[in-house]
Each structure stands twice: as C-alpha cells, then as structure tokens.
C-alpha cells in the first residue's frame, strides 16, 4: 500500500483505521487534529503502539506518579537511554525499565495498552484536521509491542466522542473553577462511586478543572464526565475567578515548532529591555 492522506472531516478516523485493519497493513498513521497530534503504529493491520506526538507528560513521570517505579530508577533508565542513543539506536524507556528488571512484562503491556487506548480516544475526539498513513515501520527489535482488538476501543471511543461533545458544551473552559453548591435539591438520594467522591472532594472553589484532572490522577474523560454530572445534579456551580479574566497560553519547548515567532519576539524584547 502506498502512503495515503486526507482530511478527518471527509474520512473519520474510525474509517481510516478500518481501512488499514482490513488491508492488514504495516505502518504509521499520523493524525494531526485541531487540538492534538497522535501517531498510531500498525503491524499487519493490528494496532501495536500509539502515542500523542506532543505528550504532555513523559512516561517516566506517569510511572513515578503511579508508584510503579521510583524517580531514581527513571533517572537511571533515562541515562541508559541516552547512552543507547549515542550509538544511534532508539529504544523506548519502557523497554529499558523492563531490561533493568524495574517493571515486569505485564506492567509494561498494561501501560502500552492504556497509552494506545487513550491515544485512539484522543484522535477520535478530533473533528477537524488531517491524517497521513506511511507504510513500513522501523522498529527496534528490543521494543515490546502489544496487539489490541481495535474494534472495542473504537466503540468506546465513539461513545466518548459523543459524550465529550456534551461535556464541552457544559464545561467549555477547563480553566473554570467550581465550588460546592449551597442549595442542593433534596429530591431523592444521590449515590456516588468511590472515584466520584474523590473528584467531588477536589472541588473547592480554588482549583480549576485542569488542576482537578492533574490532582485526581484518574482518566481525564472520567474526571470531566463526573464534573459534568455534578453540574447537571446541581451539586456544584461555577465561581467567578481572578484567574479567568485573562486567558493564558504557556509556550513549551516540546511544542515550540509552530510558535517560533514568539521566541523571536522574546529575543527582540530582551534586546530592547
């Protein structure tokens, strides 16, 4: 199969994945949505790996936060990865942790599976943008991959995409701050699951939705869905915040390329200070 590309609004991502799957193709699908960029790796039509191109949080940090490994272990693994790179080889940090004996194969497979799932969900939420399929994969023989049944993920992704639309409609800005409502209706009991209690306990009139997502260490969709439900139930309400008056965009080195003009402005201003 030759490389092919197109627009997401003309050929939605589930259909693109289906074409690759039935054609049993091997290669990389790069999805450049309006908000996120995701790369999905296929081997004989099966998804074997996926990651957001501009990952907000590094895998090592995620594993430290989850208590899977310590910071010291991650630092050792990163040092080893750097040494390997000097030999012009590329090995994923997860593979190095496995080789070091810091994690077992099942932990790594679980981590890769959740990364694939999350990446597919992210890409399916994109309504505009472009995709490109590049045949062929240059994989390190040392790296570990998992084969996943993509249809289940797509079904869940489609459900989530619909739910996301409702959530975004009700919670348009994740910089918004919510507080517990003082006049809760006494119509019947409200039952909350453990995770929902955890999320509700983080809503304190000072934290933004983004901060709650960070603090909860739960799936972003589940956190937003819970907050959406709390609003619907009248348990919480939006408060006015100083932080809201000016929208703030932070420029990071990791996603700098499209924003180099800002660095040039920065340099010009420093010259003129």
């Amino acid at each position: 199969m030759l490389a092919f590309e197109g627009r997401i609004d003309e050929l939605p991502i589930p259909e693109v994945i289906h074409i690759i799957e039935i054609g049993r193709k091997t290669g990389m699908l790069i999805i450049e949505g309006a908000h996120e960029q995701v790369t999905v790796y296929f081997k004989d039509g099966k998804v074997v790996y996926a990651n957001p191109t501009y990952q907000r949080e590094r895998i090592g940090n995620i594993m430290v936060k989850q208590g899977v490994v310590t910071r010291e272990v991650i630092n050792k693994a990163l040092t080893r990865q750097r040494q390997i790179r000097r030999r012009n080889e590329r090995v994923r940090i997860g593979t190095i942790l496995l080789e070091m004996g810091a994690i077992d194969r099942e932990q790594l497979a679980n981590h890769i599976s959740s990364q694939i799932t999350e990446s597919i969900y992210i890409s399916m939420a994109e309504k505009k943008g472009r995709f490109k399929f590049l045949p062929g994969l240059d994989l390190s023989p040392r790296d570990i991959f998992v084969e996943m049944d993509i249809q289940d993920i797509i079904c869940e992704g489609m459900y989530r995409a619909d739910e996301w639309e409702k959530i975004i409609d009700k919670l348009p800005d994740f910089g918004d701050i919510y507080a517990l409502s003082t006049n809760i209706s006494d119509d019947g009991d409200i039952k909350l699951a453990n995770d929902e209690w955890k999320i509700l306990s983080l809503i304190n009139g000072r934290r933004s939705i983004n901060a709650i997502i960070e603090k909860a260490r739960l799936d972003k969709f589940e956190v937003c869905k819970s907050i959406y439900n709390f609003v619907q139930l009248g348990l919480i309400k939006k408060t006015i915040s100083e932080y809201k008056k000016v929208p703030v965009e932070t420029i990071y080195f990791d996603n700098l390329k499209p924003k180099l003009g800002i660095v040039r402005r920065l340099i010009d201003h420093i010259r003129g200070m």
Partner: protein
Amino acid sequence: MITVKTLITGDVGAGKTEFIRTVSDIDPVLIREKVTGGSTRLEPETAAAMDFGRVSLDDDLVLHLYGTTGLIRFDFIYDILSTGILGCVVLVDSTRLQTCPPTRRTVDFIEVVSDSPYVVVANKQDAEDAFSAEDIRYVLSVADDVPVLPCVARNKEQVKEVLYTLFDRTLVSAN
C-alpha cells in the same frame, strides 16, 4: 496572554535570587528555608525552595522566571518546574568550585529529564578570587556546544545577555 516559563537553577548561594531580582519587574516571590552549614560566604538567609520573578515584555507576552536549588530534598520542585520549560539557566558561584559537583548533578538531571536547552552562567565574576568561565566549563565537564557565560547577576545588561543567549539557543534547537 502568552507565558514563557524559564528555570533558573544552581547550588545554594549561586545567585539565583539576585539574577531574578535584576530583571524581574515585580519583587521576586521568595519561598525560603534557612540553610544550615555550608560556606560562611553565603547570604545569611538563603533561598532554598523556590523564587519567582516576572518580566512583562509587552501587553500579551510574559516571561516567568522560576528559581530553585539543586538540593536533594527539593527534587519534587524540579519535577514540577522542569515540565514545560522553554529553557534553563544554570548558575555557578565562580568563587566556590566545591559547588560544581552538586551543580553537575543538576545538569545531568536537566539533560535526562528535559529536552529543553540550557546555558551555564559563571556568576560572581566581579569577585577577586573568581575562576574564569572556561575554568567552570572544565570543572563542570560541560559540552563544548553549551554556552558558559561570565556574569555578575547584579548587572542587568549581563543578565539580559544570558537570557538572550538562552532563547537564541532555544530558537536554534527547535529549528
């Protein structure tokens, strides 16, 4: 509004607070802890957790400067601050070569945890017993392509030059 996050780091007494104060247009926010032991040449109360400075460059472009030490017990601050930085300034007290090993540890940390570029600043060059920037490069084992800049952190022009060099390097690295 666009904010740009820059990390200012270095060992205790390297001059991070002074560096930030020199260019910040607010009084730096200082989160301090008293440091026990160490050199008698240190300021009596030394910033040990985090300093914050802000430079408004125009109506919608703001530079945030976060200062923090390489002290082991504040590693968690590195985790927070090194996420999403545009670049990093590593300050060294040029009169105290004994601070180079812990600073090297900081440099290692920056290199493995963050892809963002950094520059090394050989601070306190106005002191009589200051070692040169090249001496600092040698003792710190800094790669040839990393700038090691002589500086006096009280001197605004020199601090501007450091920031200019850092962002120029950022621009080159990102291209």
